[in-house]
């Protein structure tokens, strides 16, 4: 019965349209495509807002409170980097990959793996090391969404910063190797981003 219904549906799909012109069918698909694509992107953008990210208490009561005290939240020029600016790449391919990866967090929410501050603290290093591993793999693409080493005016930096940046560039370091624990509390754990990068390169 089910197979007969499927066969009829398949035959209908393969039958040339005689009632509508090619222009009507083509235009309909074009408009439907725009609506679908617009809706998809709007939904994607909705999951990139600060309100969405801090909508659950797991983020709002922990990392969000720490981030509010940092320069990425409040600064003299009023430019704010929200969660997605540092945790979601801007370009489409990397963004989609990150969104698919992040869907696993929904399962974490449903099972309550970090639903108390204590549970969050217990997982902090694991969560941070995942973010670090991702960032050393993408050459800190999330930082480079806004910061470009070649666009930096070295003469406007302190001497210390100039030396550090020159050294980092010469050693092939990526942003997160030095700039970690700047928006959230640094977790205590075995490896920092540099050690994770070495392990990933060695295939461990």
């Amino acid at each position: 019965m089910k197979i007969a219904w499927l066969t009829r549906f398949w035959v209908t799909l393969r039958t040339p349209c005689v009632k509508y012109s090619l222009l009507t069918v083509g235009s309909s698909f074009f408009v439907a495509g725009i609506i679908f694509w617009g809706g998809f992107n709007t939904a994607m953008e909705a999951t990139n807002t600060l309100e969405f990210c801090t909508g659950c208490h797991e983020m709002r009561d922990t990392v969000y409170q720490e981030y509010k005290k940092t320069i990425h939240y409040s600064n003299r020029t009023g430019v704010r980097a929200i969660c997605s600016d540092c945790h979601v790449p801007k370009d489409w391919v990397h963004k989609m990959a990150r969104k698919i990866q992040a869907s696993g967090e929904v399962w974490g929410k449903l099972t309550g793996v970090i639903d108390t501050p204590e549970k969050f603290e217990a997982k902090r290093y694991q969560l941070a090391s995942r973010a670090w591993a991702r960032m050393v793999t993408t050459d800190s693409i999330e930082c480079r969404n806004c910061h470009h080493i070649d666009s930096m005016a070295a003469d406007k930096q302190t001497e210390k910063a100039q030396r550090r940046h020159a050294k980092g560039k010469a050693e092939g370091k990526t942003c997160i190797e030095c700039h970690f624990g700047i928006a959230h509390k640094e977790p205590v754990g075995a490896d920092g981003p540099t050690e994770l990068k070495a392990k990933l390169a060695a295939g461990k």
Partner: protein
Amino acid sequence: MALLEDSKCFKCHSVDKKKDGPAYKEVAAKYKGKPEAEAKLTKHVTQPSKVKIDGVEEDHGAVKIRSEARIKNLVQWILSR
């Protein structure tokens, strides 16, 4: 922790990971069992001094407050890592 953050100590130091300055765990291990530890560290965090990083001498900053209680708390926190 808040005082360390406010004083930008984490730019060069980490609790247990490698940065340009020694990790606080290394500092705690270095001073373990030494009676002069608290006094030495208090001087180091309150008075500007010079440190060598990659063979270059640099200024080591000092905490931005004068509250003895908070400085004592900070020093003890480092030594307890």
